C-alpha cells in the first residue's frame, strides 16, 4: 500500500496486517460505532445533516461542493424510491485515492453510505466502481457480504426498522462515467452520456428518482464526522476547507502515493513527505488537481497551500486532489499532447463542441509535437478552446480546454519554440 500519512479516512488502518480491510479489523478500530450511535441514540436526520454542514466537508470528487448542503437538497417526503450513489469511477488521470479506500478501508465507505441513507431517508444505494480496478470491485463485493452478514447492511439494520440495501456496479472503460449524470446513465445500463442539468439528480436521478451522489472519499469521511463531531473534523483543516484530504501524488517524486493530510498543508511540505523530487531534479510544474486542472509552474506552486481556496487563487483547481509532479526534463508539448489525446479519446460524443472540438485540439497539438506546427496554431487552439469551454453539456469540455489554457499561459514559449524550430526543447515522454 502506498498510503503514507493517515487522517480521517485511513485512521487506525494497519497496512501491514493483510486483513486490515476486513470488517473485524474495521470494528476494532472503531468502525460502525457511528452507525450504532445514530441508531441507539435515535439521532435525527436533521441532526446528522447539521453535523455534516458544521464539518465543512466539501465533496472530494472534484467539484468541492459542500456535502451537508447537498444532502439537505434531497426531498424528504418523496413518495417513491430514492437512491444513494457513490462515485468510485476514479479515472481522472493522476487520481488513485478511491482505489486505496475500497481496497484498504471499504467499510468506512459502506458505513458512510449507510449513514447517508439514514440521513436522507434512502433505502437503496449503489457504488459505481471504475472497471479497470476489477479486483477492488470484487473486494468491495466481499466487504458488502461481510456487512450484510453482520447485520450492518440490509433489512432491519441492527434490529431497528431501518433498512438499506447496497450493491456494487462496475464501469468498463469510460472516464466520462465519473461525471455524475453519465454515471447514472451507465448505472441504468446505457452509454455513459451526461445529462443536461437541470434537472439535478436530487430531483431526477437514477431511474428518474431523487438521488444523491458523492465521491468515495466523501462518504468515507462521514463515520469520523458523526463519531467525532463536525467541529473536530473542520478543525483538522481550515475554515471552508474542513478536514484532511487524500492527495494522490504521482510523477517525478521519490515516493508516489496517497497522502492524507490536513487541508491547508503547504505544497512544499507535501513534496517533502513524498521524499522530494526523484533523482534530485528540479521541479518544473505541477498539475495540482487531476489532469483537468490547469498546470502551475514550480514557483507559483511552491507558494500554495493544499486546499480549495489557495489553489483556486493560483489559477488552478484542487479538483480530485491528484498532484502530478513534473521535473525540469519534461516536454510540455509532449505532456499536453498526451492529455489532449485523452480527452479526445474519452469525449462521450454527444455534444457538438466536445465531440468535434476535442479531436481538433488534439490534432493540432499532435501536429505541433511532430514538428508540423504553424504560427497560427496557438491562437487557433485558444479560439477553439473558447468555443468549447462553457458550451457543453458536461464539464469534460472544460476539462479538455483547461490543460491547453494552462500550458499556453505558463509554457507558451515551449510551443512557440517547437513551431519555429520543428524540434522540441525537451525530450518527448518515453
Amino acid at each position, binding site marked *: 500500500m*502506498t498510503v503514507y500519512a493517515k487522517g480521517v479516512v485511513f485512521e487506525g488502518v494497519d497496512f501491514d496486517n493483510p486483513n486490515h480491510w476486513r470488517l473485524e479489523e474495521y470494528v476494532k478500530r472503531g468502525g460502525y460505532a457511528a452507525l450504532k450511535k445514530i441508531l441507539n441514540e435515535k439521532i435525527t436526520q436533521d441532526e446528522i445533516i447539521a453535523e455534516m454542514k458544521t464539518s465543512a466537508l466539501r465533496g472530494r470528487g472534484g467539484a468541492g461542493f459542500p456535502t451537508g448542503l447537498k444532502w439537505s437538497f434531497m426531498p424528504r417526503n418523496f413518495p417513491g*424510491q430514492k437512491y444513494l450513489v457513490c462515485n468510485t469511477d*476514479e*479515472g*481522472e*488521470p*493522476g*487520481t*488513485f485515492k*478511491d*482505489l486505496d479506500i475500497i481496497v484498504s478501508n471499504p467499510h468506512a465507505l459502506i458505513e458512510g453510505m449507510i449513514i447517508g441513507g439514514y440521513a436522507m431517508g434512502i433505502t437503496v444505494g*449503489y457504488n459505481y466502481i*471504475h*472497471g*479497470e*480496478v*476489477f*479486483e477492488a470491485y470484487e473486494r468491495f463485493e466481499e466487504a458488502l457480504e461481510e456487512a450484510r452478514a453482520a447485520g450492518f447492511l440490509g433489512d432491519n439494520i441492527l434490529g431497528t426498522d431501518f433498512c438499506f440495501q447496497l*450493491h*456494487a*456496479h*462496475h*464501469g*468498463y*472503460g*469510460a*472516464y466520462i462515467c465519473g461525471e455524475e449524470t453519465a454515471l447514472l446513465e*451507465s*448505472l*441504468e*445500463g*446505457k*452509454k*455513459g452520456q451526461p445529462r443536461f442539468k437541470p434537472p439535478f439528480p436530487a430531483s431526477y436521478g437514477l*431511474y428518474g428518482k431523487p438521488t444523491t451522489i458523492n465521491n468515495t472519499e466523501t462518504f468515507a469521511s462521514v463515520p469520523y464526522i458523526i463519531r467525532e463531531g463536525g467541529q473536530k473534523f473542520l478543525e483538522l483543516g481550515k475554515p471552508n476547507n474542513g478536514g484532511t484530504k487524500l492527495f*494522490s*501524488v*504521482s*510523477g*517525478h517524486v521519490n515516493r*508516489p*502515493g*496517497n497522502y492524507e493530510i490536513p487541508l491547508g498543508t503547504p505544497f512544499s511540505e507535501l513534496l517533502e513527505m513524498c521524499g522530494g523530487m526523484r533523482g534530485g531534479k528540479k521541479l518544473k510544474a505541477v*498539475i495540482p488537481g487531476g*489532469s483537468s486542472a490547469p498546470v502551475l509552474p514550480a514557483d507559483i506552486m511552491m507558494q500554495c497551500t493544499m486546499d480549495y481556496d489557495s489553489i483556486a487563487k493560483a489559477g488552478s483547481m484542487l479538483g480530485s486532489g*491528484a498532484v*502530478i*509532479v*513534473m521535473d525540469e526534463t*519534461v516536454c510540455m508539448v509532449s*505532456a499536453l499532447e*498526451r*492529455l489532449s489525446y*485523452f480527452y479526445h*479519446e*474519452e469525449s*462521450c460524443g454527444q455534444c457538438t463542441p466536445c465531440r468535434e472540438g476535442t479531436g481538433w485540439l488534439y490534432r493540432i497539438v499532435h501536429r505541433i509535437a511532430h514538428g508540423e506546427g504553424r504560427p497560427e496554431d496557438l491562437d487557433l487552439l485558444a479560439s477553439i478552446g473558447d468555443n468549447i469551454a462553457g458550451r457543453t453539456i458536461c464539464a469534460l469540455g472544460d476539462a479538455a480546454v483547461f490543460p491547453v489554457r494552462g500550458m499556453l499561459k505558463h509554457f507558451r514559449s515551449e510551443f512557440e519554440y517547437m513551431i519555429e524550430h520543428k524540434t522540441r526543447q525537451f525530450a518527448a*515522454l*518515453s
Partner: protein
Amino acid sequence: MLSQESLALIDRELAKYPADQRRSAIMGALRIAQTEKRYLTNELIEFVASYVRIPPVAAYEVATFYNMYDRKPVGKYKLTVCTNLPCALSGGYTTADYLKQKLGIGFGETTADGRFTLAEGECMGACGYAPVMLVNNHSMCNHMTPDAIDKKLAELE
C-alpha cells in the same frame, strides 16, 4: 450460448436492480459473457441483449462505448498498458516499448501464436503504482518495470 455458470452470474447481476430495470445489468452481463468467451461477437451481444431483454442495438451501443469490451478476437492474455501522463512520467512508455519489442507486436495487435494482445490504456486509477498493466481486463499489475514484465510474462507462458 453461455455456460450455466455465466448465466447464474448474470442472474446475480440482475438481482441487484429493480425488477423493471433489467437493463442496468447489461454492463455486468456483457462483462461476464466476455470473460467466458474472451471477446464479444455480434451473436453473443444479441444473445446477452435478449437475456437481459433489451433491444440488441442498445446492447451494441454499450459494447462499443466502453472500451474494455473486446469485439475482435484477442489473445489468451490481453495486456493493457497505461500510457497516460502520470504513468508516462514514471515509465509508462518504457514499459509499453519493452513489451512491444519483447512480443514483437504493436498496440492493437496479437502475437502470431495467439497468446498475447497488446493494448494501450487510459488512466486506470492506479497512477501511484506506475507503470501499471492490466492482464485480461481484471488483474492489475503494479510497478511494471522491464524486470517485472519478464517475470510476469514467464508466469503467463
